[in-house]
């Protein structure tokens, strides 16, 4: 066993240890055992960072790969299959190591942060336990080398998410949200499970590498449609976990959980697991499946962005922005920008965690006020939070010099290239929606910054009734027991608002500093020059040969088509036509050749397309971001346009966005109502019809017996009554025999014997 494998097992099991210790002993440990959680996660991070250092910095090999497995279940010699073993194992490659470091780092920071944020909570110790099991499951997903174990950890993160969303389980809304999250995820999971089943039924293995080998060897005997279906179904797992359309509804509600949880699970790590998983199975996705994924991502990104514009809850805005950003990543994978999508995953994890923790700090400071309408002017009171929050916002919006800029542009560039390669038309919708969402992202984040940090405090504007209601609610939730004495008053002034303590500030600073471009690439404009893009390169597809039946892949050699694509681009209405001339594409050709050399034509084209569109994307997205921020400034800072009046003017649109496109209502009206009605109906059917039949049969039998009895009584007995007199008299005589004296009976018995003798002798005589 390689030492890195051993280390990774240690890293995997450490959080589990933390969970076990804390769930059983948190009440017996000093400080409810928070130091255990923090300490263990710190250790785990240190080990992960060592692994990261070894692999990324020292080895620096794109093809780095370590695998180890053991037999988990031994099926013996299975008929028709041969010896069958279900293996579990660990797969370590570059992306694993990066994810490992990222997850443990953010988890560690969130643990640290929680010691401040959750202080004084009734179930303080249990909170750290739950964080521990979450981290364990998440690391499990990252380290899995097969579909079965990833499914196991997949559901386990679902469980920890369930537990953490419902952490304030006394709140009705929290329990609703946790149930919704679990069930929605389950819907996605069954899709994923079916996808796994399709692959297993073909190859009788769950292991990635074996499945890929078999696929590449052309051993998939079902139709091409099934292969596409497998890809899409596996992607459904991602749809659920990464909150893509149409299963995104749980994520905003999941903000009922404590804010550190939102940062860790519902922004940085767990929701990104979906993207990670799709990246893992990327090579078996057929072009058709990729199209579905790309459209799903683009629509999600757009939809979530439109919703985020009108939300008032600070965490909800961030939640929808998370959905939107996840849409980007999925879009990126769909258009073949494997490394760009994962890059965005990483950068997004840092700045979104920073944003959530920042919002947590604000909420903490504002005494659990989450509505942005009643905030304002916080920059003076909370300079650290302000600075980090703003920088993370810039990264999210995608301004140059931030990490978000590089990753987002890489995705958008690939989207443009993809649209070219696929032949334009409907496929231009994808980059179009991407850019539009970029603009809206800039807008709503600008709005948020402005509403929260600038202007004057608007706390006093809050309607009194609602205020008290909220307060009572918070008190009920049991998380108002923080250390501040001046907690329950001073709502009118900001004298309760102050900067948070160091244990909450430090994570913000660390995360914000990790959003600087220099961490990832020396060139602020091109992430491809950085270490990440070098270490994480698009893998060779294994389903190319199946695509042979697929018309799209019947492309000739790459170069002519490149030119063709460029020409199509030139004639298209897109503004990038001039910015991406054919020679430029040719010039990039050499650079692209440094990356992986694809045997699959389509992948090659996509890689080239992405390169070709690089600067186009930068320019367009920069413009979009500037527009977005300017709009935000115009509306909220300079107040050239009154948001209130505008919202009235475009009321239907506003309501559509404000009510989240009515997804919840739709599901309520269809799926949930349908399920409940079916349940009631079937239950009625069971009680009345099925059981009714059973009881009916019983009653029928009984009635038949009664009827029989009646027949007997009236008809047969009628006949019998005719002889009743005779019987009666005989009975009267015979009754005398019933004396109760044994000896009479003996006499009778002997009479019978004697009678038999007589009969016998008469027989003898005659």
């Amino acid at each position, binding site marked *: 066993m390689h030492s890195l494998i051993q280390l990774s097992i240690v890293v995997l099991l450490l959080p589990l240890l933390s969970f076990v210790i804390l769930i059983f002993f948190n009440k017996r440990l000093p400080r409810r055992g928070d130091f255990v959680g923090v300490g263990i996660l710190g250790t785990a991070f240190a080990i992960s960072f060592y692994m990261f250092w070894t692999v990324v910095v020292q080895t620096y090999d794109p093809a780095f790969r370590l695998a180890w497995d053991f037999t988990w279940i031994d099926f013996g010699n299975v008929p028709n299959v041969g010896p069958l073993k279900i293996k579990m194992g660990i797969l370590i490659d570059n992306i694993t190591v990066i994810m490992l470091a990222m997850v443990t780092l953010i988890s560690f920071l969130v643990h640290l942060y929680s010691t401040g944020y959750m202080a004084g909570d009734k179930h303080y110790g249990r909170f750290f336990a739950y964080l521990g099991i979450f981290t364990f499951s998440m690391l499990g997903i990252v380290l899995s080398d097969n579909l079965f174990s990833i499914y196991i950890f997949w559901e386990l993160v679902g469980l920890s998410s369930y537990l953490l969303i419902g952490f304030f389980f006394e709140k009705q809304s929290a329990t609703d949200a946790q149930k919704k999250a679990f069930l929605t995820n389950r819907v996605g999971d069954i899709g994923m499970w079916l996808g796994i089943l399709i692959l297993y039924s073909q190859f009788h293995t769950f292991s990635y590498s074996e499945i890929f080998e078999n696929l590449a060897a052309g051993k998939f005997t079902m139709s091409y449609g099934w292969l596409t279906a497998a890809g899409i179904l596996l992607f459904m797992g991602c749809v659920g976990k990464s909150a893509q359309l149409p299963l995104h509804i749980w994520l905003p509600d999941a903000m009922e959980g404590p804010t550190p949880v939102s940062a860790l699970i519902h922004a940085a790590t767990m929701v990104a697991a979906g993207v990670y998983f799709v990246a893992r199975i990327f090579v078996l996705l057929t072009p058709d499946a990729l199209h579905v994924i790309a459209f799903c991502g683009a629509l999600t990104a757009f939809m979530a962005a439109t919703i985020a514009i009108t939300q008032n809850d600070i965490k909800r805005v961030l939640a929808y922005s998370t959905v939107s950003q996840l849409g980007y990543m999925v879009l990126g994978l769909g258009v073949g920008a494997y490394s760009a999508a994962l890059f965005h995953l990483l950068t997004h994890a840092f700045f979104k965690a920073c944003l959530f923790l920042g919002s947590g700090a604000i909420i903490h400071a504002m005494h659990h006020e989450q509505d942005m309408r009643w905030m304002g002017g916080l920059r003076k009171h909370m300079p650290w939070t302000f600075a980090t929050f703003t920088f993370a916002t810039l990264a999210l919006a995608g301004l140059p010099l931030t990490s978000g800029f590089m990753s987002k542009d890489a995705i958008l560039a690939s989207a443009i290239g993809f649209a070219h390669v696929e032949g334009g038309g409907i496929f231009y919708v994808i980059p179009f929606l991407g850019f539009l969402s970029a603009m809206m992202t800039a807008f709503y984040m600008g709005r948020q910054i402005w509403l929260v940090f600038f202007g004057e405090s608007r706390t006093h504007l809050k309607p009194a009734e609602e205020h008290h209601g909220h307060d009572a609610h918070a008190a009920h939730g049991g998380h108002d027991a923080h250390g501040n004495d001046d907690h329950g008053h001073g709502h009118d002034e900001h004298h309760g608002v102050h900067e948070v303590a160091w244990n909450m500030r430090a994570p913000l600073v660390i995360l914000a500093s990790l959003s600087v471009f220099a961490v990832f690439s020396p060139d602020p404009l091109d992430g491809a020059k950085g270490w990440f893009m070098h270490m994480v390169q698009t893998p060779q597809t294994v389903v190319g040969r199946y695509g042979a039946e697929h018309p799209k892949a019947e492309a000739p050699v790459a170069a002519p088509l490149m030119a063709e694509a460029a020409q199509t681009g030139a004639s298209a209405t897109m503004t990038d036509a001039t910015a991406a001339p054919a020679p430029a594409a040719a010039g990039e050709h050499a650079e692209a050749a440094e990356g992986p050399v694809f045997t699959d034509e389509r992948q090659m084209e996509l890689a080239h397309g992405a390169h070709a569109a690089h600067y186009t994307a930068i320019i367009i997205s920069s413009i979009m971001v500037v527009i977005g921020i300017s709009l935000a400034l115009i509306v909220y800072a300079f107040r050239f346009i009154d948001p209130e009046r505008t919202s009235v003017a475009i009321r239907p649109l506003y309501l559509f966005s404000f009510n989240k496109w009515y997804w919840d209502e739709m599901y309520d009206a269809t799926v949930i109502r349908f399920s409940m009605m079916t349940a009631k109906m079937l239950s009625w059917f069971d009680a009345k019809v099925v059981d009714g039949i059973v009881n009916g049969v019983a009653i029928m039998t009984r009635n038949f017996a009664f009827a029989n009895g009646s027949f007997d009584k009236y008809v047969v007995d009628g006949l019998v009554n005719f002889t009743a007199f005779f019987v009666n008299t005989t009975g009267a005589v015979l009754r005398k025999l019933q004396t*109760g*004296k*044994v000896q009479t009976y*003996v006499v009778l018995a*002997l009479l019978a014997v004697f009678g038999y003798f007589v009969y016998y002798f008469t027989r003898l005589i005659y």
Partner: protein
Amino acid sequence: MEYLTTIGLNHYLTISAFLLAFGLFAVMTRKNAIVILMGVELILNAANINFLAFSKFNGGMGGVMFSLFVIVLAAAEAAIALAIVINIFKLFRTVDVSSIDTMKE
């Protein structure tokens, strides 16, 4: 005369028939439970004589063994039956079986 002087199977069977008939008569007609028991003993003896007679003229041991067990069982039966009779006596203060007709109900 030859028939009377040579003791054969029928002689024994006749004796046993008499014992059986007397036993049955006692069981049928006597009111005293003890006498009924005596009748039962007579019946058993009749059976024993039959067994032994057949056994003798058949040459096997089955009848002998059977009669042995009959005696054993008779002993047990007598003990239990007497115990029951005594119980009946305690309950009804009589051993007159004709007055014990609760089975009638």
